[in-house]
């Protein structure tokens, strides 16, 4: 019993935070439903009921959109027709596809967080990583596909690591605040991508828009299921492996210990003879590398070509993710699955009920707020206030 409580303990605040965020989100949906509210003066009771029904429908569409319709899935399993099975499990696989980049970027933010640096630049490292992979594919297109895949992913990872190393280096050598430099480098990265995609070498022939040539004609991350319209690729497997590796690295190795020590107390770490500057640079490079790895899988596995909007805010979602997960790799996987589900489910919600997908962004902001201010959540749910430091290590 006690062990169970210990296991659940760190999840209480995140779960309540998510509930609160959805609650506020539904109030927001309700008050922006002008068509419904127009009837309020004549029929207040009916308006409130209709409003609540609308909100319920929206969340129901979100759940079905994210996990699929259970009855359909059961029926499909019996049918043995690949097309029916694919249609039934597609929402679930799409959730995993959406979660893949989030796991990578969430891990990236967490590694930096654990080492005491706040990497807001994951967004930039992600898209430049994807860009590095794109360039590598087009440069080495003659290689056999399996080798090309490895080379491209390696190039993407290194590009991301290099882009993450810059703010780490600046922080270690000059004390430049990494939040400022990473914000600025995000914009520079976006401009670099735009610049690269305008060049004849990368741009898709005959296209005026800044999109690269289709990389899938040269190489593609292999798919897990051979079913029509299922996009789930091995990126998710690598993402889970990376979560385990990161967990092992930060909790079980000496270097990881040094990083965490630097994160807890830089002065103490320095006093104990560890290289604080080295820790910061290593953490930022690792963080950038993870982001770049995620970008490579996104462009080679999910998108198939480089575009300026490859990252749908993955780097920013990652900050929410890492906070929600308390920077624990397992938590990040779970939180990424949740956010992936929100994203795919939000898509169906938008189609079915006309409620914009951007509701998700708002809900995510609320989640960060409630997680970051645990007292707020506890006061909403009338829980006893407890010391802040419990479980929430940053």
């Amino acid at each position, binding site marked *: 019993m006690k062990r169970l409580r210990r296991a659940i303990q760190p999840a209480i605040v995140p779960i309540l935070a998510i509930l609160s965020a959805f609650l506020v989100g539904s109030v927001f949906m309700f008050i922006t439903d002008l068509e419904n509210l127009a009837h309020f003066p004549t029929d207040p009771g009916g308006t409130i009921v209709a409003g609540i029904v609308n909100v319920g429908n929206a969340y129901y569409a979100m759940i079905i959109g994210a996990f699929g319709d259970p009855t359909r899935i059961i029926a499909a399993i019996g049918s043995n027709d690949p097309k029916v099975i694919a249609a039934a499990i597609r929402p679930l696989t799409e959730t995993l596809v959406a979660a893949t980049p989030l796991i990578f970027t969430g891990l990236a933010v967490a590694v930096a967080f654990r080492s005491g640096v706040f990497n807001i630049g994951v967004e930039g490292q992600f898209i430049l990583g994807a860009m590095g992979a794109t360039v590598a594919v087009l440069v080495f297109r003659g290689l056999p596909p399996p080798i090309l895949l490895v080379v491209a992913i390696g190039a993407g990872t290194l590009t991301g690591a290099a882009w993450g190393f810059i703010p780490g280096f600046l922080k270690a050598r*000059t004390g*430049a605040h990494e939040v400022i430099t990473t914000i600025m480098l995000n914009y*520079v990265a976006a*401009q670099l991508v*735009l610049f690269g995609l305008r060049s004849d070498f990368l741009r898709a022939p005959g296209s005026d828009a800044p999109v690269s040539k289709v990389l899938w004609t040269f190489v593609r991350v292999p798919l897990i299921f051979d079913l029509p319209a299922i996009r789930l690729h091995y990126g998710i497997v690598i993402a889970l492996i990376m979560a385990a590796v990161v967990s092992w690295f930060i909790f079980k190795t000496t270097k990881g210990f040094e990083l965490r020590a630097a994160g807890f107390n830089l002065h103490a770490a320095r006093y104990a003879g560890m290289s604080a500057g080295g820790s910061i640079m290593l953490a930022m490079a690792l963080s950038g590398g993870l982001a770049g790895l995620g970008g490579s899988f996104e462009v080679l596995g999910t998108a198939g070509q480089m575009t300026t909007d490859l990252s749908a805010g993955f780097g920013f979602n990652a900050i929410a993710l890492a906070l929600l997960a308390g920077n624990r790799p397992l938590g990040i996987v779970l939180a990424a699955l949740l956010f992936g589900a929100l994203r795919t489910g939000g898509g169906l919600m938008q189609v079915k009920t*006309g409620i*914009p997908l951007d*509701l998700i962004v708002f809900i*995510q902001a609320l989640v*960060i707020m409630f997680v970051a201010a645990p007292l707020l959540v506890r006061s909403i749910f009338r829980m006893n206030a407890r010391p802040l430091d419990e479980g929430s290590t940053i």
Partner: protein
Amino acid sequence: MTAAAPTVTPIVREMGEADRRNLRSARIRGAVIAALGLVCFAAASGSFGVIATFSFWLVKQGGEAFTIQTSVGMLWLLAGIASGVIGMVQMIKGPAFPWRKSLLILVPLYVAAIVAALLDGKVANMTNVFAGTLEYAVPVSLGAFAGILSERSGMLNIAIEGKFLIGACTAAICASIAFTATGSKEIGVIVGVLSAMLAGIGLGFLLAWLGIKHKVDQIIAGVVVNFGAIGITNFLFLRVLGNNPWLNTPPTIERIRIPVLAEIPVVGPLFFSGTPYLYFTLAVMLFLTYMLFRTRWGLRLRASGEKPSAAGTVGIDVIKIRYRAMLLAGALAGIAGSYLSLSTAGSFQLGMSAGKGFIALAAVIFGAWNPIGAFGAALVFGFSDAIQSLLSILGVDVPPQLLNSVPYLVTIIVVAGVVGRVRGPAAAGQPYDQG
């Protein structure tokens, strides 16, 4: 060195490892600047025949113009001579030479020569460039003032972008409603600006409340506001404004021509027939500078940002100061947001702040947490933006991404201390515990 007699001149006697390094780097710097001068001469030699034409409107846009013509070679020559002289002086004088100030002369000369060379004989309308610069600088510097206020009081503020978005959206909606209700443009505009200000104050309060009461990391609080602002405004735009266009047709703010001054050639059309925002920005800049550096209030504010524990010891209510600074900052950023939707655009658009809030943050740093400096920084960033649009209108083949990156690169260079280290308030970002 240690055995040197005390009679040697003081500078040599006290020379340690650090001084020697400074001397060496000063010499290298001088050599680099002088070498740049040679590059300028090389560029000059080939371009005396190319004429650069800069034109200015005399009274109003599209009216009579006044032009300055010069050869590109002359500009390069000037830049070359200046570089050569400054490089020499730097090499002779060593570390004592205030080389950072000399950049104020060198960089504009380089920029003028490079722009002239890029124009390649085409006529550049500088009034448009300067007007574009100001138009860009107004919201950026108002946002920067908000950043200065909050950071000087010890609250890190990366949420300017979110305040811009919310301010722009609120202003558009409230101004539209007030305009439809009363039919008066003026009332619509005033209601719009005031509502944006209130929205900004609300966000400022949220930031302060999260950061001070709940001790949420101030960067995370900023991320919450930026994120939430994108979510809310996109949601409102798609769900509410899309179906009800009348909610997104605010009246725009008219330009004010100041009676006599607007008639001055060249300067009049630029500075004295602008929107009220321009005058407001200039007034806030002067007022804020005075308040920050010349009043008791300013001293206390800065004390809370530099060393809150010491400020608290002498009886300053740090928490109250921080709350007030955040509310004031929110008001300024909200007003800046209303500029986006009420001044030129005449409606709210998706993500219309387009990173300007982060450029404002850059201006805070580039301007060394000083209102006048921040305004100068906003002008520099605005100029690079205006030049970029000038070049793209004239069809000059320069990648716009390069000029678009200028504010970000400049900021990185400045925070890294490559060209003159600036130092922010020491306690910005740290929560304060009132004991």
